[in-house]
């Protein structure tokens, strides 16, 4: 049903929308790295940090940031490069739109979490 609906949209407009949304998701994937780390740090502080400035707690907080940044950076690369490849190969198909939707949903979800927590 979605494919039939999309074929009614002019192809240039569809291309522009996909590129624009891919760009947005790519930028967000990088911007959300420190945001995600802040969420993890927030949870760590709530359960373990006692604001005493202990050396152990400080370095635990640093370790969280350092260990989290690498996998998050990998995820960003997957979103940017992997996303571009996937949308190119499956252009116009429902699964491409669904993947883009879910990627943006995850990113918006992280933004919501950061805002609420």
């Amino acid at each position, binding site marked *: 049903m*979605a494919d039939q*609906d*999309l074929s*009614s949209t002019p192809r240039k407009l569809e291309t522009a929308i996909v590129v624009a949304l891919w760009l947005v998701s790519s930028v967000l994937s990088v911007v959300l790295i420190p945001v995600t780390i802040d969420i993890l740090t*927030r*949870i760590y502080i*709530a*359960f*373990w*940090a*006692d604001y005493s400035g202990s050396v152990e707690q400080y370095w635990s907080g640093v370790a969280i940031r350092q260990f989290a940044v690498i996998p998050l950076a990998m995820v960003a690369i997957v979103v940017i490069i992997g996303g571009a490849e996937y949308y190119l190969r499956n252009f116009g198909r429902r699964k491409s*739109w*669904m993947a883009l*939707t*879910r990627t*943006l*949903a*995850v990113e*918006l*979800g*992280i933004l*919501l*979490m950061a805002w*609420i*927590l």
Partner: protein
Amino acid sequence: MRDTIRNAGPYLVSGARTILWMFLVLAAVVFAIQAARALSYPYPLDYGEGPLLDQAMRLSRWENIYPHDLSSPPFTISNYPPLYVALLAPVVGLFGPHLVFGRALSVVAALAAALFIGLIIETNTGRRLAAWASGLSFLVFPYTAQWAPLMRVDLVALALSLAGLYVISRWHDARFGLVGTAALLIAAAYTKQSYALVGPLAAFVWVWHKLGWRTALKLAGMVAIPGVLLFLLLTLTTRGGFFLNVITANANAFDVNVVVDRALSLLETAPVMIFLAGLVLFLGLGNIPLAPLLVPYLVGSLATAATIGKVGSNVNYLLELAASLSLCGGAVLSWSHLKSTHETSEPPTLWRAPVYAAVAVAVAVQIGLLTRATLTGPAEQVKWRTKTKTELDHLARTIERAQGPVIADEYMALIPLQGRRLYLQPFEMTQLAESGHWDQTPLLEQIQAQTFTAIMIHHFPDTAVYRTRWTPEMLASIEANYIASRYAADTITFEPRLPGEIYPSSSVQCPGAVWALPSKATFGVWWFTKELVLMGEGEEGTVPVYAVADGVLMRRETWNDAVAIRHDDPLCSDGQVWTFYRGLASAEGDRSYVADEFPPGINEIPVSAGQMLGYQGRLWDSGSSWVHVRFAVLPSLEDGAFPGALVGRAVPDAPPLPVEVVQEGLRDPTLYLGTMRSHVMGVLTWLPPQCGTER
């Protein structure tokens, strides 16, 4: 436009579901961490854990836990029916007294309650995401996150009650459905007596709606008759002890302000849930299939929640409300999903998908708000409690080494953890004494006779909770016959006063001292860089503060909480000193407890030794603390002026203090009072209110 909305519908739904799943995973992780931290902590996290552990130990030895006669020790009460304790008794009997067993049972019960909430939704709507959302939102409610990891009865009772509702919602037309529901609801009531109301009410209305009033009455009979018979059996076999402990001892005073505060807090924490529950309540009947079950459950849980105003109650009274709000949220989510798919014979209307997406995102945001409340509330509480483990090791050793009985309040569980019987449950017996159901004279005589090796009173900095746990007579007797000797984990340990020993007070000077204490220090003295913080016993504005010697008093215009007196220095024949008394104001700083005869702005008012200056307050710089007075001795300036900069009360545009005055700083007050002192500077150090030298 219509085509765009229709085309975008599946993607909106998918995106919204993704966001909701993210928040559900976050909720599960937060609950898991909270539960794990509490389970791994060996010491008490709540006052109520002690009595339950003691009861489990006694029941494991086949002792009666419902005494009918409270005139002789132990002065303990079993507030709840026996099911929870009966489940634990074999385990603690086999493995010894540990809090982890009861806490694990409570966590498992919380998970079961969440499961049954989800199953009620899924069974009656077929919506799995809504079921997950209902169950996990219940777990991340701050009330659940706070109470689930404690050794308390409530989550087990709730799980049994919800199991009963699940059985009746799924198998209401099967015979075993009625029997099974009745058994589960009776089990819930015999875990905690307040669960005899809401669950049975909801089941009754549901069955009436589905099968008619005759079957509903049959269910009511199946719950009420065995329940009452069991009650009579327990009351008879304990010679009235069961009734006394479970009914009479639970009737406490009520404070409606607590209800209002909690309602406002809930409105702030769960606005979406409350809105969705309102939809179910006012529009659900006829529209939402589960409404005949959810509406009475919601109404009943609101009534139960109102009893949180009872003195001594806590967030456990809000657990049924949390469950009902979670159910309502899941019901509305599943209803909006049902209408947005092709599962009806009609095609979905244009706006159903966006509406479902909006509801899903709203529920996600709600779960986020609940998660935040859990992180800032229960998670922080457990964190701060577990930080005192080292100090609790000291308290545990004190109890272990005690020759005679020990009584305690907040950390009462340390006593059964050492394998000892509880001698006194202070809060419960205080409530019974105040309602006239218990004569505290035997206990007062034992305090006077110094029967107890140690008495441990927990003193929360922000509220005098201990005053609900000890009667004024008990506190007066403790003050007269015991002396604060140790401080750990915000708990003061009192030990018997030694005969012939001199203990300083506002009327008794230490040997060789030139001044008596300016006020009572029942809960000890904090040394803070040559300033003494004397902690009196009582509400703010009730513990008098006196001038330590003759002098002239000054109170600056801006001093809401302080006065200063200039004296001749008794330790230096031609010198003068100032004594400075501060903290004489309410916690918010809006009410001064300085005596009316010393209004702000006065100067050079003669006062005599022992003259009352005001009352201890709770103001501490820009915050608040225990009821106290801060006392400092300052050198007088050459012209007799007050060196306010030494205590952070410098006059604007005043000239800087002379170097020698700054270098000298505050005078050591213990040289004048003869009390104990410390070498520690810059950090609050607790000292017993005794004569002595260094600690």
